[in-house]
């Protein structure tokens, strides 16, 4: 049967609505079973103390803050530079299935999990932090670079004279057209790298997170305030101090600023792969039956409960992210705010998106006590800030009729319907990211997969930790492909630069 194009688009719109309602219903159901209690007796007093700390920052130890900042920047530069170089090379052979699978796998594992793995054999050496960033980033870079290169105009390639070498053809005909996109995406990942680098401090790297956790655990809120402010300024002024001509200098100098850590013993690497991660029953020669028992115990008592909590938390956080994004984008949209208002809006969104979820969740957990609530709020604020920023920017590209409605009508009948497609595309894109973060938040004590991974590591059972990490990665890959299917079904345009 033939349908007219309008029919088709109406069908699609109703499919979009159905999908959205479906997600909201699932989130509400999850909310019913989720544990979202505030357990502290005086949560507002703690929050007040933190805010007091933020307005009375303690810069009395500039050397310590400066070192932490320097290390954060150095780890980010080295990690992202290595990741980008490796990613670029991998992008050239990204059509190979094995490369695609490998990249999907390494990027499905969070930087903190990589750090926890490398810590086992490199120990507290800078290499641990550098590789923890470089490896998953290489996977991401490979995918995005290859997409950017694929979308480059094919014409220059076709008009090359016969006999042009592969490499010169690539460099002179493919790269120039894609170059601006490559640069802007790499710059965005550098910002992510700074966040990752800061968070690596929580597992022992000498970056901001290390100092922040120490100050927080002891209730030195003014020190916390100073560290947070410095970090916000670092991210907000990124464009000012990262100039194209300065980047080679930064990359060249950074390896010298990572600190020394402890020497690496190479025997430990071999031991990790040949002993530590071999399942205990095999290591002790107890046979396959014991292995199956070991594995099913792990699956039943740790993996499945972990997966369940991770999914529940992710679904609530996803819808929360959507809500925050829809509420926040008018803050920076010229259709809703005047110039000074939008400056404030920009500041709010920069703070929301430059604070890593992990850090935000850590802070909120201290304030409200252990439940899913701090994690939900942290994930929704951070990711909502990012998506709000993106659709806010997009809304500024829209030109309205002079007689267009104002206020709430403009919001509900004009802007939201027009922006809903890109909004959903961004949201589905972040679904996998939210899930990856949800899993990692378990390290803070919420019973998602990260909690069980952390427990296994605390018990020095790397065989169990590795199985749980692989399960986490598979879950992420599954959600990612589900999101892609939904995007395709709803015909949401696929965007390479899906991130700010």
């Amino acid at each position, binding site marked *: 049967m033939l349908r007219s194009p309008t029919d088709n688009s109406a069908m699609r719109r109703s499919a979009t609505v159905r999908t959205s309602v479906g997600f909201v219903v699932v989130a509400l159901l999850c909310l019913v079973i989720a544990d979202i209690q505030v*357990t*502290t*007796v*005086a949560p507002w007093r703690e929050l007040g103390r933190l805010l007091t700390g933020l307005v009375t920052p303690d810069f009395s130890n500039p050397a310590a803050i400066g070192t932490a900042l320097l290390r954060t920047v150095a780890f980010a530069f080295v990690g992202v530079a290595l990741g980008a170089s490796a990613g670029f090379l991998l992008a050239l052979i990204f059509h190979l299935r094995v490369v695609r699978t490998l990249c999907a796998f390494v990027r499905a594992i969070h930087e903190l999990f990589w750090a926890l793995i490398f*810590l*086992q*054999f490199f*120990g*507290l*050496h*800078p*290499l641990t932090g*550098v590789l923890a960033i470089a490896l998953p980033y290489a996977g991401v870079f490979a995918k995005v670079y290859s997409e950017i290169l694929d979308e480059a105009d094919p014409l220059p390639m076709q008009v090359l004279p016969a006999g042009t070498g592969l490499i010169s053809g690539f460099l002179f005909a493919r790269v120039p057209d894609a170059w601006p996109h490559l640069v802007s995406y790499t710059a965005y990942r550098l910002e992510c790298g700074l966040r990752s680098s800061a968070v690596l401090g*929580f*597992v*022992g790297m000498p970056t901001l997170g*290390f100092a922040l*956790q*120490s100050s927080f*655990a*002891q*209730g030195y809120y003014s020190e916390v305030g100073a560290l947070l402010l410095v970090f916000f300024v670092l991210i907000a002024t990124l464009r000012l101090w990262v100039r194209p001509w300065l980047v080679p200098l930064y990359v060249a100098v950074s*390896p*010298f600023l*990572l600190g*020394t850590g*402890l*020497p*690496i*013993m*190479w025997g*430990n*690497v071999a031991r990790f792969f040949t002993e530590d991660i071999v399942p*205990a029953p095999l290591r*002790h020669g107890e046979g396959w039956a014991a292995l199956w028992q070991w594995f099913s115990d792990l699956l039943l008592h740790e993996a499945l409960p972990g997966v369940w909590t991770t999914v529940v938390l992710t679904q609530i956080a996803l819808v929360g992210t959507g809500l925050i994004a829809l509420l926040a984008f008018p803050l920076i949209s010229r259709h809703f705010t005047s110039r000074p208002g939008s400056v404030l809006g920009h500041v709010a969104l920069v703070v929301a998106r430059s604070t890593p979820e992990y850090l935000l969740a850590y802070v909120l957990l201290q304030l409200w*006590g*252990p439940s899913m609530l701090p994690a939900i709020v942290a994930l929704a604020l951070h990711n909502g800030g990012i998506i709000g920023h993106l659709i806010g920017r997009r809304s500024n590209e829209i030109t309205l009729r002079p007689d267009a409605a104002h206020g709430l009508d403009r919001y509900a009948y004009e802007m939201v319907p027009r922006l809903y497609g890109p909004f959903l595309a961004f949201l589905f894109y972040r679904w996998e990211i939210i899930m990856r973060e949800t899993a990692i938040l378990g390290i803070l*004590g919420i019973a998602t997969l990260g909690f069980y991974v*952390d*427990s296994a*590591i*605390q*018990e*020095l*059972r790397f065989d169990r930790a590795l199985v749980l990490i692989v399960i986490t990665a598979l879950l992420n890959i599954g959600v990612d492909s589900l999101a892609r299917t939904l995007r395709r079904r709803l015909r949401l345009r696929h965007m390479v630069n899906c991130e700010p």
Partner: protein
Amino acid sequence: MFKDTLRKLTLALTLIAPVAAAEPLVFTAIPDQDETKLRERFQKVADYLAEELDTEVRFVPVKSYAAAVTAFRNNQVQLAWFGGLSGVQARQLVPGSEALAQGVEDAQFRTYFIAHESTGLEPSDHLPEAMKGMTFTFGSKGSTSGRLMPEYYIRQQFDAAPEDVFSRVGFSGNHSRTIDLVESGTYQTGALNFAVWESEVAAGNVDTDAVQVIWETPSYADYQWTIRGDVDERFGEGFKERVREALVGMDDPELLASFPREGFIPASNDDYQGILETARALDLID
């Protein structure tokens, strides 16, 4: 090839590190308390040991109990101040390593169970039934006095796993934090190292109207200094014994008070057999 690349990369990274003249003795400690306190205490210990042993001594802080054990196992540190459980884990992973010395108090260590005043729980000679259904926090997942022993006695008293006894079970991270969380009411009850409690109370850092001790466990062996078996080859014959003598000979009252311990006495691996068996019973160790 991958390994080769890694090796080159590390070489590049290590080349830029200032190379010390002689190999320093590096040690670490489990992060069982506030970091500032630990840094202060162990910096003093480093200075003391450097003088006694006439060698460079460096303290490295870590973020978790497991990280301390891993650094020891990886030979990135040669000496460590472990808890009972982390020491047992470390010595199991590094054949030839030895418990050198323990605090006088560590031979008779105890865990205190504490409760917020709003619970109405009072000191008693066993874990009160009324704790069932309340919220409870351990210290670190790898702690002896904050996890292993309290879990053991909870299971013994209630014949059930902590998750089934309490409505919510948390891991505060360290003993100081456990006091904070129970004092503020975030958790109704908790369990911690008795020595940390005593010293925090003596220092006036605890609001004893808000939180009090409701039960203490029987005694067990806890903290100890553990050293790798290969230090004699590395630092010269008799080095291990010299470290033991230096530790046992520590008599600076200020330094001892920072632990807080009366003094140190020699210890052996056998002192911790009971801890090993308890850890096995709770399936915390293979």
